[in-house]
C-alpha cells in the first residue's frame, strides 16, 4: 500500500471529501494476526487523524496488556497501519452527497449471543451514530453482555465503510481486498436491491407512508438468540473449520491470480 500522502481532518460541514458517513470519523479496524500458532483477533475503531506513532504505542500496549509475544507488536502495527493507509488513500476523493438509503444487515455472534437484524441506514446522513444506535438496541433488548453493543456498532461501521468506499471508487480501481469482497458480495447485492425498491416506493406512490407495511415488520425486527455453552463450542469449532477451508481456498486463489498475472 502506498503511504498516506493526504492528511486527514476532513471537515463535516464544509467538505465532502471521503470520510466515514457518521458523526464521528472513526474507521473500523479488524485485526486477525497469527504468530507461531498463537492467534490474535480483535476489532475496534480508530481515529485516522491520530498520529502514526500512536499506532505503535497502541500495539505495544495491547501486547503488554494481553501478555502476547513481543513479535505481535510489528504484526499489529502493520495491520492497523495498512488499514489506516487504505482509508487515507480514499480521503482525497469526493463523496456523493445526498440521501442514499441502504439496507444494513446484522448477523453476528458475540460470545453466546446471536443477533440478526436488518434496517435502513442513510449513508448521506453524517449525523448518524452507530455506537448510540447499538447502545439503544442493547438497552431495548435488554442484552446484558457488554460486548454486544460495541460489536454491533463495529459491524455497522464496517458496512458503512465498505459502502462509502464503493460509492467513491467507481471510476477508480476498487481496492477492496478480495477477502472482504467475497464476504460482502451477498450483502451488497441485497442492499442495492433494497435501495432500489425503497426508492421506487418513494417515487411511484405519492401516498407512500412512513409506516411500514405490517407484513414487513418481521423482516426488520432484531432477532436475538442466546446460546448455551455447548452450542457455542460447537459453533466455534465449525467456524474454525470453515475459516481454515476458506484460507486454503484463498491461498489457492492467490496462486492462480499470481500465475495469471505473471503470464500476462
Amino acid at each position, binding site marked *: 500500500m502506498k503511504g498516506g500522502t493526504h492528511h486527514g481532518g476532513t471537515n463535516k460541514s464544509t467538505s465532502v471529501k471521503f470520510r466515514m458517513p457518521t458523526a464521528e470519523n472513526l474507521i473500523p479496524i479488524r485485526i486477525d494476526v497469527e504468530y507461531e500458532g498463537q492467534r490474535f483477533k480483535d476489532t475496534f475503531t480508530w481515529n485516522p487523524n491520530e498520529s502514526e506513532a500512536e499506532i505503535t504505542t497502541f500495539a505495544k500496549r495491547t501486547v503488554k496488556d494481553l501478555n502476547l509475544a513481543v513479535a505481535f507488536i510489528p504484526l499489529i502495527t502493520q495491520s492497523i497501519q495498512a488499514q489506516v493507509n487504505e482509508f487515507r488513500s480514499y480521503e482525497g476523493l469526493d463523496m456523493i452527497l*445526498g*440521501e442514499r*438509503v441502504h439496507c444494513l444487515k446484522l448477523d453476528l455472534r458475540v460470545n453466546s449471543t446471536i443477533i440478526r437484524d436488518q*434496517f*435502513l*441506514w*442513510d449513508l448521506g*446522513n453524517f*449525523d*448518524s*451514530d452507530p455506537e*448510540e*444506535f447499538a447502545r*439503544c*438496541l442493547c*438497552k*431495548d*433488548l435488554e442484552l446484558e453482555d457488554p460486548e454486544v453493543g460495541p460489536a454491533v456498532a463495529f459491524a455497522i461501521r464496517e458496512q458503512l465503510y465498505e459502502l462509502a468506499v464503493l460509492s467513491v471508487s467507481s471510476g477508480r480501481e476498487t481496492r477492496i481486498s478480495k477477502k472482504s469482497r467475497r464476504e460482502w458480495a451477498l450483502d451488497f447485492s441485497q442492499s442495492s436491491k433494497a435501495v432500489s425498491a*425503497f426508492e421506487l*416506493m*418513494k417515487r411511484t406512490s405519492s401516498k*407512500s*407512508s*412512513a*409506516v*411500514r407495511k405490517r407484513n414487513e*415488520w*418481521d*423482516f*426488520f*425486527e*432484531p432477532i436475538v438468540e442466546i446460546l448455551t455453552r455447548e452450542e457455542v463450542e460447537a459453533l466455534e469449532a465449525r467456524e474454525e473449520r470453515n475459516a481454515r477451508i476458506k484460507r486454503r481456498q484463498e491461498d489457492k486463489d492467490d496462486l492462480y491470480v499470481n500465475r495469471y498475472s505473471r503470464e500476462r
Partner: protein
Amino acid sequence: MDMMLPVGVGGCLPAASGGLLPVSDTAGLVSTSPVDAQTNETHDSPIKNEEDAPESVPVQEAPSEKITYRIPSYAEWFSSDKIHFIERRALPEFFDGKSLSRTPKVYKESRDFIINKYKEQPERALTYTEIRKMLVGDVNLIRKIFDYVEYWGLINFHTANENKQKEIGTESGAVQFPTETIPSGIRIVYPSKILRAKAQKPSKEGPSGIINMPSYMDIFTNSNLLNVTGSELTAITGSQICSNCGIDNQSKWFENREKEGSILCEACFTAGDKFLKEDFTLVESVGGSKRNSVWTKEEVLSLLEAIATHGNNWDDVASKVGTKSKAECIMYFMKLPFGDQFCNGNVEPDSLITSRSTTDSLKIDQRNTNNNVEFVGVHDNEELLESVEDAEGPPNKARRLNPLADSSHPILDQVAFLSAMVGPRVAAAAAHASLLAISEEDPVAAQFLSAAQPSQKESIQITSTSKDNSKMNEEQKEETGSRNEQNSQPLRAVDADTTSTKDHLPSTTQIRAAIATALGAVAGNAKLLADQEERETEHLMAIILENQLKKLDSKVQHFEELEHLLNVEHVYVERTQTYILADSIRFSNFNYTSRRG
C-alpha cells in the same frame, strides 16, 4: 355531563378546547372513543368527553379499562394536528426541503405513529427498537424523532413518572386523562390549575389562534403597556397563578402567546429552558386593581391637578391619580379637548369639564347646521371680527388670540384657537364666505347679519357693539327658538351658559357662524399646508431627478474611461501579437536555416 364533539380526521381536539368544559380539581379532560386499536386508525367518530371523571382514580386503582394517557405540562404546546415551531427548530432536517424522503409529512406521520403506538399501551414503555421495525426510513432519523418525542414526555411519560408519581402523590404537573379504551390521537393539555382559572369564564375561550411567533423586540417593547389579554385574564382570575410553580404573581408575569391562560412567573420564565421563550409575553400589571376604562369626575380632576403639579412626569401623575395606570392617564389626557392649551397655560379643571360638555353640544350644533356642505363655504364669527377691529389693522397672532382667549365661551375659544392658525386675511375671507352661506340658508339670520354688517361691508372688519350684539342676540334667540324645535336641550344649555356671561351673548346663529368660520379657517389652513407640501414634494422630486442625472453622468464617464482603457489594452495586445508573430517567424527561420546549415 357528557359532551359530544365531532372530531376531525386528525383525530384530535384542538388544544384550546380545554375551555369547553368547566373542570373539576385535578381531573383532566377525557377523550375516549371506541377505537380499533389493531389497525391504529383514527376515525371520524364522535368523541365523548367525560368531564366528571372520577378525579381520585389513579391508574393503579382503575383496573384494566381506565388507562391514563398523560403528558407533562411543559409539553402542552404539542398538538397532533400540526407541527409546532419547537419541533421545526429541534428537527430542522425535516423542514429544510432538501430531501425527498425527509419531509414534514413524513415527520408528522412518524411522530403520530409513535405516539399512537404508545397510546395503545400507555402503561408500558415503548422502546425505539420496537418502533424501528415499523417505520420506513433511516434508522438514525427515526431515532431522532423517537428521542425527541420521548424527551418531551409525549411518550413514556407515564412509565417514567410512575415512581415519582407515587412519591409525590396526586400533585404533579401532569394532566391526566382517564380513558375507557385507547384514545385515538386525542389529547388535551391544560394543567389543571389553568383549567380551574379559566373555568370561571368559559365564554372567553375559543380555539387558540394561529401560531404567532413574536420577536424579542415585540415582547420587550410591549412590556410597558398593558396587555389586553392579560388584563382580561386578571379580570377573570383576579390573580396570576404560575402554571409551573403555582405561585401567585402580583406584578409581573409571562403569558403564553398561543395558549392564553398559560402563565409563568418571572422566576420560572428565567429558569425554564423547557419553554420556548418566544412564546411568552411579559405582562406587567399596573398598580391598582380597578381596570375599568370609565373616568369619574374626581379622577379627571385629580389627573389634571397631578399634571399641573408634576408636569410630564407621568409616573408621579399616575401614582397621584391612583386608580389608573400610567398608560391610561396618558391616553385620557390625550383625548381631553384643548390638551395643548392645558400644557402651556393655567386652566382650571372646571372649565375643562364645561368645555368637554360643550364639545358634545358642539357636535350636535354641527349636525343642526346641517352642514353647509362644503367646508369651503366659510362662515362668520362676529367675535373674531370684533377682535380684529379692536386691534386696529391686522394684528399678530398672539395678540389676536389673546382677546378671544378671554372669552368665557368655549366654542369661541376653540374658534379663536383655530383661526389663530391661519392668517388674518384667510380668517376674514372665511368669515365672509360663512356669512354669505348662512344668509342664503336662513333669511332671518341674513336679516340679522345684514343689520349688523352694513357699516363696513367691504372691509374685512365688521363692527358691532356689544350692546347691539346683545339686543340682536335676544331677538334672534326668540325667533330661532320658536322656529326651530330641533335646537333642543344641549343647545339651550349652551345658550343659557352664554347668556349668563355679560359682555357677549352669542346666539345660535353666531355659534353656527363661529363654527363655520372655524371650519373655514381650518380648511384654508389645510389648503395652505397642502400647497406647501406639494411644493416641497416637487422640490424633492427635482432634487431626486437631478441626482439621478448626476448618477447617469458619472456612469457614462466611467464607461468612457473603461472604453479608453480597453482601447489602450487592445492596442497593446495587437502590438504584442505582432511581436510574437515576428518572433515566431524569426525562430522558424532560424530553425530552418540551422537545420539546413
